[in-house]
């Protein structure tokens, strides 16, 4: 197959009808750039949702007592050795945290609410939203801190504020109710109102003292990045805690996991729609190009060009214009993403955004794998689009073509 000749002919043929091919190229660039930008936004949405789910005191994997999810009480707790740490390489481990998380009733002077009372070691909570939220007042200082921090929304509901006292009632390890007063160290401002209404934090040692047991109800482990190696840490935890349940974030946050998969599917569907529309334009242009050159193609066949080489020429023209379009489209998409900068502020739609489990800032994420996939599939679609025009070209009988 004379590849050099076919490349030369294909390249020059593309310049034969500059305006028409420029229009087609523009359509490819817009389609590819659109796919790249939308993919990056969907990836941003997807990983933001994953990050929110993982930061929601979940981690990439979590150890729980059997039955805790159905009945999250102090009875479903377990003991954790003081010197325990997960068997994960330091460069893969972002952090881990042991907690007591039990239901409680919280009372201010005016209101009463049901909450999740969580005993934490604040030094370890860099892996959850508690480590990054802004506090009015103070954050908890240590595992022995006897004060509480509550969310802004809960503070509003309880009509209370920093420095005031609250009473919490929960069940002790012996099954009897325990009641204690706590001063509010600070009020945190989380991304979601639900978080602010549900979680009340104190030092883990203070909560252990209240329930009268040196136990924990959960151990969360968070890995670096997007949690690659999640299954191996899950296996490792399951091997160590053989009488406990070990769940990953998808099992703990099934809705977020489903949305994560949906985003993957949405990206693919969007890509198919864009490329599907583009293919019709590409096929139409290529058929026109073949029909215009029918005599020339007939001559090439007459002087000895094999049918396969004619097919290759049409395929190459399609692939070449698609390749240039893909490169330019990715470049334009990348520039657009750069222009978006820190992300898109969705705070105007805060409620809806929160319902989707997202944060109020949508940060586009561009992955090399996605770009390779878009480029590869676009070229594949370009190839597919060229097959029918190529078939038409090869069906041309040299004699009929030369008689025209």
């Amino acid at each position, binding site marked *: 197959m004379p590849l050099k*000749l076919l490349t030369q*002919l294909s390249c020059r043929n593309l310049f034969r009808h500059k305006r028409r091919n420029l229009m087609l190229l523009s359509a490819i660039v817009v389609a590819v750039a659109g796919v790249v930008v939308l993919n990056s936004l969907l990836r941003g949405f997807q990983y933001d949702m994953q990050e929110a789910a993982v930061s929601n005191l979940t981690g990439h994997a979590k150890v729980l007592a059997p039955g805790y999810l159905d009945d999250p009480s102090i009875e479903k707790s377990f003991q954790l050795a003081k010197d325990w740490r997960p068997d994960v390489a330091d460069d893969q481990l972002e952090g881990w945290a042991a907690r007591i998380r039990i239901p409680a009733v919280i009372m201010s002077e005016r209101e009463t609410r049901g909450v999740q009372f969580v005993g934490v070691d604040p030094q370890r909570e860099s892996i959850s939203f508690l480590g990054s939220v802004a506090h009015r007042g103070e954050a908890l200082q240590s595992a022995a801190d006897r004060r509480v921090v509550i969310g802004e929304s809960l503070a509003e509901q309880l009509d209370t504020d920093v420095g005031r006292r609250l009473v919490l009632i929960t069940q002790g390890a012996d099954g009897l109710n325990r009641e204690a007063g706590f001063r509010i160290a600070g009020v945190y401002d989380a991304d979601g109102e639900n978080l602010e209404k549900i979680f009340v934090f104190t030092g883990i040692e203070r909560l252990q003292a209240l329930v009268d047991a040196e136990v924990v109800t959960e151990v969360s482990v968070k890995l670096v990045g997007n949690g690659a190696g999640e299954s191996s840490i899950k296996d490792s935890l399951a091997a160590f805690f053989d009488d406990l349940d070990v769940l990953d974030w998808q099992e703990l946050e099934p809705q977020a996991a489903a949305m994560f998969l949906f985003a993957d599917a949405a990206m693919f569907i969007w890509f198919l729609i864009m490329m599907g529309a583009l293919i019709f334009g590409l096929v139409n242009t290529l058929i026109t190009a073949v029909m215009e050159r029918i005599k020339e193609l007939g001559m090439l*066949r007459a*002087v*000895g060009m094999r049918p396969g080489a004619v097919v290759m020429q049409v395929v190459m023209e399609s692939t070449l214009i698609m390749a240039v379009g893909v490169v330019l489209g990715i470049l334009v998409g990348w520039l657009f993403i750069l222009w978006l900068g820190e992300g898109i502020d969705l705070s105007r739609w805060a409620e809806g955004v929160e319902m989707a489990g997202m944060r109020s800032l949508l940060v586009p994420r561009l992955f090399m794998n996605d770009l390779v996939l878009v480029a590869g599939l676009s070229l594949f679609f370009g190839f597919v689009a060229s097959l029918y025009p190529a078939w038409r070209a090869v069906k041309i009988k040299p004699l009929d073509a030369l008689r025209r």
Partner: protein
Amino acid sequence: MADDVVVCRGVTRTYQDDAVPVLALQGVDFTVTKGEFVSLAGPSGSGKSTLLNVIGGLDRPDAGGIHVDGVHLNELSESELSDLRLSKMGFVFQAYNLIPVLSASENVEFILQLQGLPAAERAERAQAALDALGVGELAHRRPGELSGGQQQRVAVARAIVTEPVLLLADEPSANLDSNTTEELLALLRSLNETRGVTILAATHDPMVMSFAKRRVQLRDGMIAEDSARVAVA
């Protein structure tokens, strides 16, 4: 015979013209030996172009057999016919049929590219062919920048650059003025005499016929007159 470049035996070809069968060739027996310059003449519809096309493997006969340089065309597939045309035949078309996006030298060279020759040899042979036809200095011009006569010379250069066994020309003078036609025919005769290229030209131009050494007259799909037979007789 070993010297026979073209052998046609009982070649018949029928076309359908609006469901009406048209007998373009009726059992034609025809032989061209190496080094001949043959003109196929006759009025429109006499079958001269059809005979040229079946000999060139561009069309297939309904009956009869055709051998070109000893190869039986009837037995070849489309790809094999392409290979045969590429290796053994040169074509000169009425409308030149140069590729407009390639320069004159590239138009000549691409046949050699199809044959898989190395770049240096291609360039050398293409330039030599263009020089031989007097258009060497126009090698870098594209067809749109050449006159009709110059384009036909480039087309002839493309046809002979592979040193074919057989050069087929279909109405080579149809788009040329008489001076250019005369120059072209002198060139073809020179190629025939100096290089021994076998030429078969379908034409109704008396000037082309006058330059050919052998004149074959077709009428109603049959050979009505053949100057070679007359000479033998």
